[in-house]
């Protein structure tokens, strides 16, 4: 399943990064950072089309030899990035989409919290968000 999940704010700074602790987190930070370029490219590519015409799910941003990076952008330019291990039986597109959907829902719940200032890093105390993201890590979504 996913080895790294990242939520990046509109200004391209991370709100939340969590990776499977077995591997070095720094590597995933770097990967997510580089994937931002691809995300920017994709969302700017749409150009004239407004956000509502642009699909939120960006698909595979780029693959490396070890893993694949998928992207998702919300209408408020908040980006979700999921890094998936390539060794997994290649996940179907729908599964990735559902992972993003779950992530988006959890993120929306966090946003609904009036005590959360948009732009603040999502604390690990936001238990539900963390729980849901962890479930993306460890649960195969069907």
């Amino acid at each position, binding site marked *: 399943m996913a080895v790294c999940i990242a939520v990046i704010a509109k200004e391209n700074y991370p709100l939340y990064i969590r990776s499977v602790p077995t591997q070095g987190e720094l590597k995933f930070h770097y990967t997510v950072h580089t994937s931002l370029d691809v995300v920017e490219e994709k969302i700017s590519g749409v150009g004239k089309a407004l956000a509502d015409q642009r699909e939120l*799910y960006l*698909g595979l941003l780029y693959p490396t030899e070890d893993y694949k990076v998928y992207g998702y952008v919300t209408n408020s330019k908040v980006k979700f990035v999921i890094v998936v291990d390539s060794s997994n039986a290649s996940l179907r597109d729908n599964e990735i989409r559902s992972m993003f959907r779950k992530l988006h829902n959890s993120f929306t719940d966090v946003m*609904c*919290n*009036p*005590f959360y200032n948009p732009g603040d890093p999502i604390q690990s105390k*936001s238990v539900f968000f963390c729980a849901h993201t962890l479930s993306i890590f460890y649960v195969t979504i069907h």
Partner: protein
Amino acid sequence: MESLTLSDVEQKYYSELFLSCDVDNTKKVASNGKVLDLFRAAQLSNEVVLQITELCGATRLGHFGRSQFYIALKLIALAQSGMPLRVETLNSVRDLPLPRFVMGKNEQEPRHAVMFADAENQGHYFPRPPLRVQAKKVSAHEMIQPCVPTADPQPDTTSPVVSPHQSPPTSPHAWRKHKRQASGGNVDRQPSVPGVVWPSFREAQPGPVTGDGMWSAHSPPPVQETWVSFTDTPPSSTLPMHPPSAQPESTTVRTGMSAMITNEIQRQTSGYDDPWKITDEQRQYYINQFKTIQPDLTGLIPGSAAKEFFTKSKLPILELSHIWELSDFDKDGALTLDEFCAAFHLVVARKNGYDLPEKLPESLMPKLIDLDDSAGVPEPATEVSFSASPVEVTPNKSPSMPSLNQNWPELNQNNEQWETFSERSSSSQTLTQFDSNIAPADPDTAIVHPVPIRMTPSKIHMQEMELKRTGSDHTHPTSPLMANPPELSDETKLAASIKFPGTSVGDGYSSSDSFTSDQEPISSAVNRQRSHSGTSPEGLKVVAPPPPPPRPHASHSRSSSLDMNRNFAAVPAGSQQPGVVAFPPAVPPRPLPTQTSVPHGHRSVEGDGLPAHTSTSPHQMPEQPNFADFSQFQAFAVDQPEDDEENPSDSGQAERCPEAAGTMRTTKNDVQAEERNATTVNSAKVSTPLAPPPKPVRRRLKSEDELRPDVEDLPQKSNVIATVLATQPSIPRSIGKDKKAIQASIRRNKETNTVLARLNSELQQQLKDLLEERISLEVQLEQLRPFSHL
């Protein structure tokens, strides 16, 4: 002896005890009498007491000074913990429990002890006997009621100061059974404080606050003050000295809260192990607070207002955020009454030192369903009357706590009912959950029907047959065709007519699905579906993964009539829409062909004329039992080129097959058998009769445009068949007329054959059109599909 180090708690405790003993308020000397009473209450032997008094130097002084008193207390603690009484050990002993005093008459000391004990020794202090508690309760009530404000002199505020500290930990502790009595101490402590109980978040100024005032609603500014006071009283661990200004409010708040809670606990004699349960008083208080923000109790508090309100509690934003996450059950960014109560309750608990749970406790969960059926109050009536009832009830509270208690349960129940009502109305999430729960049921029920496995091999077989037959890439359209005959033959006994319309809807899903929309048992339909899915990898089938197929099944199974209607509508419409199979009239014929095909098979096995059959028939016959239609189709297809020769006979028998009437069927069979026996030509027809039957069966697979002609043709054919059959029986009887009859039958068969040939060509054309459509749709789909493979 003078060098005595006391912890803060001990300091406070001891000073409290000293003050209690120091009735004369001399601040220095404690009377021996009181002290001795106290010491005796420590349940130590007199010898020990004497020893202690000696050690602390009281005997030397003749009285207990403060230091002596403290030393004595510490020695008592030592003695109670079983340690030898040594002066040297006084300072060396760490974590010495506070001395315990089981008091008899003296109310103050136990109270103090209780308070202190609760602060520090959550398990150490043994509560006083219940009797004491009762007395305390009464006294507490009495004290609460008049709310006599005792203007404590500033020095004495040390004790009031203490009590608020104690009360926060006490109140949660009071929730536990064994702490009930301890809380009584707090209750007693209350009178010494400007008696404003916690529910009355009103101005904490000393003043006669009546019981009415306690329970009535309060204005926001006092709320702020009390919230401010909360900051001055951090939860349990430390016992700082409050600035005097904050003391009254804090004490009032604290003691009020604790008093309320303890009162509630005392009233509720049953052991509520659930520390998260909201008491009735608390709930009423929450509701009042809710009203200050949102007058409509069924309405929502927006997130921003709730944020402001709870920020006043001065809890860290992180914790408030956590509380919000726990309490906003439907995640809508607003708080209903239930959610607000839960949030408020969590804030209170947190202020008292309870850690926030990871998950919302059940007792705090907004009641989505009206559980309080015991209240027996109709909800609308409750709701209507409730707004008035609290106001009415609160003024009545003053007379007695018991009455208050009696009223609260009702109100609480009403509240809960009301809250549940409001919760229900406001929690869209629950509705959606219900809906989502309902939805999956249908596919499940539909999935139950299919018996798919059986079809798979046949499907593959059919595909192969089809490939051989057509040699084209369109495996998919025809494979269902292949699938259908076997299915049909297997399932003919089922209510094919019903299934047929049902399946048609599903077939509407795709062009190829339309083929399968023929009258078919649901199982066969499912099998069809599976054949579709199976071929999708192979063929160009663009059918989505499993979910879509079951849906058509569901509709099939459910609304066969609907499908029938659609079929009927499609027939006159004559549109080229795939999937709508409009052959209700063809339904009857369909079983017949299959059934007849079976008898055909049987007959073929039995009949003598079988060997004389054409080459196609033998290998078709064995297939008939399982793949009657399929083989018929095959035979039909194979025989197409040959049909020109055998058309008359073939068409004759073919037309016989689709005969709707079962009786006709049997007669046909007989006739056909006789015919077969009579003529070898007719034997060839046996194979061909199989072909027309597949047509109705194959209708599932074909588009409706093909089927429509079938529908139209079938009646015609059936008419022809009827006529043919009518004539046929006469044939064998009159031998003399055999030749003529045969010729006549030949003529008729030729006619039917031409009709069937025409029909066949039309169907073939329709098939080609549909295939083209399918290809175009697939191309479009490919274009529209996002770059998933990237």
